[in-house]
Each structure stands twice: as C-alpha cells, then as structure tokens.
C-alpha cells in the first residue's frame, strides 16, 4: 500500500491504461503541454507523446463528438472536460450520439468512450461552473456515470471505465484532487455498479456519492462521539449501473436512511435512491427516508454562503439526529 492523492490515483490509472492499450488516447483542453488545468494528466505528454495525449481547442461539442465518432471505430478516447459544467455545450454529442447510437443501430455500433473531469460546487466559481450533472446523465439509458470519492476508488473505477465498451462519464471533484488515501502497489480494477460500505454501523444508513460521502464520514464521527449513534456510510461509487442490493441490505439492517447529495433536490440521484428504498425496503423503515441536498438555487459565488448551500457536516449531523429521534 501507498498513500497517494486522488489526483495521482487518476493519473496512474490513465498512464496504466495508455500503456496497456494503444487505442487509448487522452484528449482535452490543456491536457498535454499545460499538464492539465488541474494537473490530472501531468507528465503524460512527456511519457506517451503527442499522438496519445492531445490538446484541443475550446470546442467541446466538436472534440467530444470527434471522440465519440472515433470510438465507433474502436479508438478508446478518454476526454477531459476542464469542468463538467462545460459539457453543457456538448450535450447533443454526449446524449444524442453517445447515448443513443447503440440503440438506434439495433446494437450494431457501440461507443467505448470515457468523458471525465471535475463536477462539483464548493470552489466559489459561480453558477456556470458548479454543475453536478450526474443525475442528468443517469437519466439517459445507454450512458453510465461514476463518481469516485477516494483515491482508491478513483483509480480502480477509472481503469474499469476505460476498459468498458459503453460510454462511461466519470465525475471527479476539484476539492478531492488533493486528498490522500491508500492505494495498492499492484494493479486492480473496481467493477462499475458495486457500492462500498465505507463505514459500518447499526443505527442509521447514510447513503451518498462523490464528496458527499466524505462529508457523511466526517458527520458519522461526530454522531458517534457526541451522540452515541452508530452510523453506516454507503458510497454508491457508481450511480448507473447502481448497486441496489448494498443500499437495501444496509437499510434493512439499520432501518433508517439519510441520503446526502450535492445534487439539487429535484430529480436528484437521491430522489431515485429514495424511490428504490421505499419500493423495496418499505417494511424495514422505522422513519421516513430523509434527504439532504444542495440548497435549491444556482450555485452562489459568495464564499461563506456557498458553504451553506452545499451539504456540510453540521447539516448532516442535524438531519441525522432528526431521522434518529
């Protein structure tokens, strides 16, 4: 085991897959010569050269669509969006083309493409730069979406995403890039659609994905120390495919569920999880399912207010106490 950052973990995943498969190509704005706006692709140009690591102009619809087209022929592009928010200018390509071409061709075509980059609020960059579109993507059959919370998951999920033969959209988090965690020396992958119980507990299940998992883990500590509550934290890791069984078995054990989610509340990932739990574990619930989402407005710039807008430890603790009261 080594301790490396989330950023390094992603970088290793990219480097290993570039080495393993010559069809893998990294593309995006500032990924090569600049070494990545957030340094995720650092050193890759030097190691793999300009055929494998390609800088693009600021033309998301064009270059993402180009990657999708190349993937139909068997190239395996890993496209960086400097921010996932910029995907919004490329949505036609990402949804209509990557998401539907397999179905519309009756299964004749598939798109082994990865689109990755940070998708998060909390960095005071305002409404246009702080979107979390995992719920939009998960609403499109044909697309897969994963949101790693730790360096270990980031590396394992990224490698799997690159090997997957469907479009996999990986949503990272700028606030996690610098966070460290244990990662094995030897090679490993993590299957999509397998959740991870990040902390075991018996009184309450907190379920989330991405950075919300880290927030939940911190809140679980407080709940244990200050309120003697034993909290289980379930990390979805992959939103679609979704590991329903791990969610349900946790709720059947604790009988209470709090869903923490940086999505805005309307048709959020947590909305879907709530539906799954009430359909399949209703009889096990001792309290209504609770949700804690981002406050329902575009992301505010003002730094102290953006802290309040996103689910934070205090808010999780408060909500958890309510669910357990």
């Amino acid at each position, binding site marked *: 085991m080594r301790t490396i950052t989330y950023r390094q973990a992603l970088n290793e995943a990219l480097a290993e897959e570039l080495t393993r498969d010559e069809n893998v190509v990294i593309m995006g704005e500032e990924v090569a010569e600049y070494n990545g706006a957030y340094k995720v692709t650092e050193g890759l140009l030097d190691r793999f050269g300009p055929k494998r690591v390609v800088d693009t*102009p*600021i033309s998301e619809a*064009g270059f993402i669509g180009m990657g999708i087209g190349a993937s139909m022929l068997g190239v395996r592009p890993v496209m960086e969006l400097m921010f996932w928010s910029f995907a919004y*200018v490329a949505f036609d390509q990402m949804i209509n083309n990557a998401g539907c071409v397999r179905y519309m061709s009756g299964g004749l075509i598939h798109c082994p493409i990865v689109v990755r980059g940070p998708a998060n609020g909390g960095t005071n*960059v*305002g409404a*246009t*730069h702080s979107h979390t579109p995992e719920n939009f993507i998960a609403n499109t059959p044909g697309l897969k979406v994963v949101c790693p919370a730790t360096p270990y998951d980031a590396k394992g999920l990224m490698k799997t995403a690159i090997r997957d033969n469907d479009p996999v959209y990986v949503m990272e988090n700028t606030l996690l890039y610098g966070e460290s965690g244990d990662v094995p020396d030897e090679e490993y992958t993590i299957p999509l659609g397998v959740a991870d119980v990040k902390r075991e507990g018996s009184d309450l299940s907190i379920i989330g994905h991405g950075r919300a998992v880290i927030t939940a883990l911190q809140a679980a500590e407080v709940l244990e120390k200050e309120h003697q509550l034993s909290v289980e934290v379930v990390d979805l890791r992959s939103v679609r495919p979704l590991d329903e069984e791990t969610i349900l078995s946790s709720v059947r054990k604790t009988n209470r569920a709090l869903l923490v989610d940086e999505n805005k*509340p309307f048709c959020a990932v947590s909305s879907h999880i709530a539906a799954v739990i009430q359909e399949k574990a209703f009889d096990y619930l001792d309290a209504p399912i609770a949700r804690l989402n981002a406050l329902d407005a575009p992301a505010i710039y*003002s730094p102290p207010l953006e802290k309040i807008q996103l689910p934070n430890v205090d808010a999780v603790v408060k909500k958890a106490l309510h669910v357990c009261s």
Partner: protein
Amino acid sequence: MNATKDYAEAPINQQLSAEEKISFLREMMRIRRFEQASLKQYQQGKMGGFLHLYIGQESVAVGTVSLAGDNDHIITAYRDHGHALAVGMSMNECMAELYGKATGCSKGKGGSMHFFAPDKRYWGGHGIVAGQTPLGAGLAYGLKYQGITGSCLCYLGDGAINQGAYHESLNLAALFDLPVIYVIENNGYSMGTSQQRSSAFKSCLAERADGYNIVWDQANGEDLYEVRAKAQVAIERAHEESRPSVLEIDTYRYYGHSVADANSKKYRSPEEIDRYKQHHDPVNLWQQRLIDEGVIDTDKAKEIDLAAKEEAKASVQFAEDSAFPEPEAILEDVYYEVDTDSEAGQTGRHFFND
C-alpha cells in the same frame, strides 16, 4: 495593416476635446489600479474562485466603449472588470462583488466572472467561453425588432472563436442583418495555448467572417486612436446599414490566464511579457501621446494615476466594511415571479428542499 497611418486623424478622433482624451487615460488607469488592488486582496485570501485580470488590454474596453451611445449595448466574457468600469460601474460595487458581499453589483452571487449592469447597457460578464456570443446577436436582434437604431458590442477571446456558438451567431447575424459587432480581443493565448496551437486560419482570426459575408478588420490594440477609428466604422455600419462586423484587436495580457494560472511564465517567455510592458503598453503609450500633443504633462498624469489608486484603495475598504449576504439570499433572485410575489409565483411549488 497600415503601420504608418496616424489614426489621430480619423474624424472620430479629430473631434475629441482635451478633456475627453484625458478621460480615456483616467479610465485606463482606473482599470489598472482597480485590478492591481483586487490582485493584492485576492492574494490575501479575501476572495474565492477565479480572478481573470484585464491588465494590458485596457485600451480595448476603453476605446470601444468610448464610442457607445445611448442604444449601444455591451456584453463580454469572464475577463469583465475592465468593461464594467469602462461602462461606468463603480469600483465599490465591483470590488464588493469580488469579495462576495451583499453590496456587490450582483449581490455577491456572481463573482468576478459575472458582473452585470443592465442600467448601463452592460449585459455581463459570462463564464462559459463564447456563451455570450449568441446573446450579443440577440441584443442586436432585440434592438432591430423594437425599431431602435443601436448596436451590440460583443467581446470574445481568441480562443472563443473556436466554439460552435460563435459560428452560429455569425451566420445568424449576417442572415438577419443584425447590428452586432464581434470584438475579438486577441491577446495571443487561450489559457496556456497560443493562437497557433488552437486556431486554423489564413491571415488572421477575424477573416473567418468572410465566409459569412461579414465585413471584418484588424486593429492594433496598443493605439487607442486606432481602436476607436476602426470600431467607429463598425458601429456606423451597425447603425446605418444594420449589418454585423468582426473587429479583431491585437492586445496582450500581462498576468496569467487567471491568478491561479501556475504556468503563466512557462507557455510564454518572460522576455515576451517584458517586451509588451516596455514597448506596447496601451496606458503608457496613450499617456505619452497626450504629453506629446501637449494635452497633459507628467505631473497631471501622475495626479490622475494617484487618484485612481486612491479610489481603488477606497473600494477595498468599502468591500471590507460591507456585509455578506444573509443566508436567505441564497433562494432569492431565482425566479422573477416568486421574487415579485406575482400570481404566477404563487401557484405550485418552486423550491424543493424539505
């Protein structure tokens, strides 16, 4: 380009009073001092997010906006502080916005990239590269639709010209005869990517307009007279013929793409930056020009600069003394109908926490 032509002789410049010429110097110095003050505060951790400085490009905003009349509208990208001050926004409201304070121009909700002042016909401040370019066409469309003789000055960077939205806008503008002027502020780089590495072109970036049958031109941004002379032609075309234009203005940014740009001295040489500062600085060159013309002397220039510096300092104090928005403000300004408590705002649920 005609390097020897003296654009001071253009009629639009001939008619300038000494006072007006001095006011351009004042505006450019105010922008520079404001940005220097904001940089200092950013580095002290007083602001979050990004800070894209306009220093080096002041002549573009000041020169073009100086021509805008009552029905000429302005819209730009995220490097928007210079245009904001040029249209007459106060340093106080701008600095407070950077601080995320309730007294900011956008009540602390937009931040550096999202300044707005519709009362001054300033429609932002847009964070998504080229996202403002269809809006610029739309403002021009709106003017034309309402039978108003006016124009929209829509600014974009040399990197932004590669977005589809810009090309679609050009086609619409030409097809519908819209009075919009696309001002390409060509500072040579989009983040760490030079113009050569990001754009395919024949002689210059504006030339792409040819394909849409739009008249285009290029200007040397270090010369305020030239910026004004060429922008005036485009504005007249908008007013008199309701036709679009593309004007590419060569300029340079001294700082990184944003203050967070750690590589700003890697993708271009310190010598290159120095050369611009020494020989092509639009503020210095304009000051020298006015001294040569006998409009001001060095003392007067210093006095103007000092006043700009003081004003910037005072705006920092204003921002410091202002309050952050109240938490309730997060859910305000989302829907017009809800904020105004209209009938439409009262039916159905608009917000979904708890």
